[in-house]
């Protein structure tokens, strides 16, 4: 029953307006587009109707009061599990440029409606040894190529896709938290509480590719924003980085791009800057590369005032 209702809602939300005329005449609908999911648009335009195409290809007529703009098509669960063909996504983080402003964290939280205490993209204040200077280290999920987290999942709720991304299906996860214990990089978070949902969020159909609406008792983490990638956009953190320290791209194309739109060759970038992966010795083969914090032009983090926790590894 519950399932049925959900799938109806999904079908309904997948309505795509095809008729140009309908758009031209349906001023109300345009409003609805510009203000997606707005309660206001709903109340103003009741009574008008437009033609729309369902995901299954049927042309239907809907009242504009019920029409919701489709921000993007949520892909099917199968597609979300396979990934985008021909791609191998990578991220490069230039520690020399990061000044610890945490704009990436904020953008990520906004995009994924994450509660404040949960930072999928977290900026650490690191100090490798007592004699080396401290530096900032933004850390997403590394989308490891030999992921300890997906290995242990008893139900295949978290999985590795062919494009390199590691995702979680929150509608399958049983909440055993084995993956949290297995992830060496503390990248995973648990929905301990019942999530607080805005009406808009509740209306969005769930997809592992965007990770919300949240499900209580399941695990979540940085997902490399596959929903944005499908729209040809950059992950939230990349676009938000004011220092242009974050690069994102495709290993197969050997190209990565930063928030400035500056595209560089991945191999050259790594070669010229001595790129490395965090804790390479663990053999997890992260898909996130770091460029060492050399020649920084911002003050180093004040570790004495850092919050709880010992400062990184002292070797």
């Amino acid at each position, binding site marked *: 029953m519950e399932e049925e209702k959900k799938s109806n809602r999904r079908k309904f939300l997948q309505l795509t307006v095809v008729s140009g005329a309908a758009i031209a005449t349906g001023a109300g609908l345009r409003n609805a587009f510009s203000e997606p999911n707005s309660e206001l648009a709903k109340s103003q335009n009741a009574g008008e109707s437009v033609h729309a195409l369902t995901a299954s290809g049927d042309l239907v007529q809907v009242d504009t009061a019920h029409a919701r703009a489709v921000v993007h098509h949520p892909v099917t669960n199968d597609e979300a599990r396979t990934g985008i063909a021909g791609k191998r996504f990578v991220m490069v983080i230039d520690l020399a440029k990061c000044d610890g402003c945490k704009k990436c964290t904020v953008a990520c939280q906004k995009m994924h409606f994450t509660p404040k*205490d949960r930072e999928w993209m977290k900026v650490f204040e690191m100090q490798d040894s007592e004699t080396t200077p401290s530096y900032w280290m933004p850390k997403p999920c590394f989308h490891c190529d030999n992921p300890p987290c997906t290995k*242990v*999942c*008893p139900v295949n*709720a978290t999985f590795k896709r062919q494009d390199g991304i590691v995702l979680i299906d929150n509608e399958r996860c049983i909440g055993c938290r084995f993956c949290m*214990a297995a992830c060496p990089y*503390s990248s995973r978070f648990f929905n301990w509480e019942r999530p607080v949902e805005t009406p808009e969020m509740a209306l969005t159909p769930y997809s592992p590719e965007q990770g919300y609406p949240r499900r209580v*008792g399941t695990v979540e983490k940085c997902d490399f924003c596959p929903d944005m990638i499908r729209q040809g956009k950059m992950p939230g953190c990349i676009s938000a980085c004011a220092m242009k320290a974050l690069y994102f791209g495709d290993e197969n194309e050997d190209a990565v791009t930063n928030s400035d739109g500056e595209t560089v060759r991945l191999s050259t970038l790594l070669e010229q800057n001595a790129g490395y992966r965090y804790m390479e010795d663990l053999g997890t083969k992260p898909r996130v590369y770091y460029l060492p914090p050399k020649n920084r032009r911002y003050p180093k983090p004040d570790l004495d005032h850092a919050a709880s926790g010992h400062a990184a590894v002292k070797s």
Partner: protein
Amino acid sequence: MEITPVEKIRADFLRPITPGNFGKTSRYWVIGLTLLLCWGIFAYIYQLRTGLEATAMRNYVSWGLYISTFVFFIGISHSGTLVSAILRITNQEWRRPITRSAELLTAVALMFGGIMPIIDMGRPDRVANMVIFGRVQSPLLWDIMCITTYLTGSLLFLYLPMIPDIALCKERFAKTGSTFRLWVYDKLAMGWKDTPENWRRLERAMRVMTVMIIPIAVSVHTVVSYIFAMTLRAGWNSTIFGPYFVIGALYSGSAGVILTMSAFRRIYHLEEYITPRHFDLMSKIVLSLTMIYAYFNLNEYWVPAYKMESHDGILLSDLFSGGWSTVFWILQFGTVLLPIVILAIPRGRKPVGATIACIIIVAGAWVKRYVIVIPTLLHPFLPIQNVPASWSSYFPNWVEFSVTGGALAGIFLVITLFSKFFPIASIWEVEEGVHLAKKGLVIPGINTQNGADDRSSADHSNHKPIPAVQEAFAK
């Protein structure tokens, strides 16, 4: 009229379960346990409604008291296998009066141990996913397979030798027992007829089970350890975790057997059957297991401590001299070395001494599980920075204590109710022991079939009077 030893044995072991023999103390005990269990269930329902937010677990310490207790209960469940199977295989005559209580402890601890991970689950409503989408590559699936196999095995192992006794109960309480009770006996006796053929089959089934249950038990705690050992975390990433957990299980489990022995002996006045000699022998078993456990402890901590490799080093410093040091050293000296000292001296192996040593061991084993799980989770590779205070420390809250306490009460409750319904020792095996003793047949390697046939001939008239019983057990 002089009563035969067989009659005496039957009378002594059937007395606690005689209908109407449910004293005031037992009643209060059962009511108390039921209340605790209900409180635990209430706390669990609260947790279900709130989500796991109701517990003290947070993102760093994502496993807490529940998983530690899971490991502890499964460890305790290794008692029955050790005592029953190993002592049966080696034809240890003295095992006879204590096998059933050991097997009972195994089965019950296993049942409640198996529930703990489900209590810990964020989405218990999706438990079926484990079957629908189950991945055999996950250690959790290995756990489920091994634990269900072991549970089935130990229930059988408990049940098989009970059949003749249940048939006896059915016959004895035919007049006094309630309809329900007789119905249960009738169903469980499975038409036992006391024929030689019956006995032959029982013996054969027992032989098979005895051999099978040992490797199964070893597999169970090995895969329980794999939940930790298959990760890259400091403190868990260890190659000896499998055998370390198995020996830890045997050590706490055999101590658990002494505790059940001690309790039933006092409560049901079985001093004649469970003698100081039993305590002495069991204590020696516990002693050697504790020493092996101490040896494993040494390997587990000393080898990495010598090297102080980066992350292991941070964790070990915290255990040896940091925030965890008090509890760590209490565990090492108080619950491992101290019991060794107590059990090494003959007086310490007397019923009182052994009971005290085993209480220490069992309590210590529980805390030790906690100290395996929590400190590692509090020492991730990346520093814990800028997180809410509740994430960077852990102590179980009332919900976790209530639910865990409820599970413990459940274990006591099931054991108590069992002992009010079924004989707490294997009557026929004790009788068999008396026959063998009488015939001078108590020699390892001799097929105990003889005794069984003897009994089934129902010729009890020529048995020696009561002293034979003491003779068999008090040697």
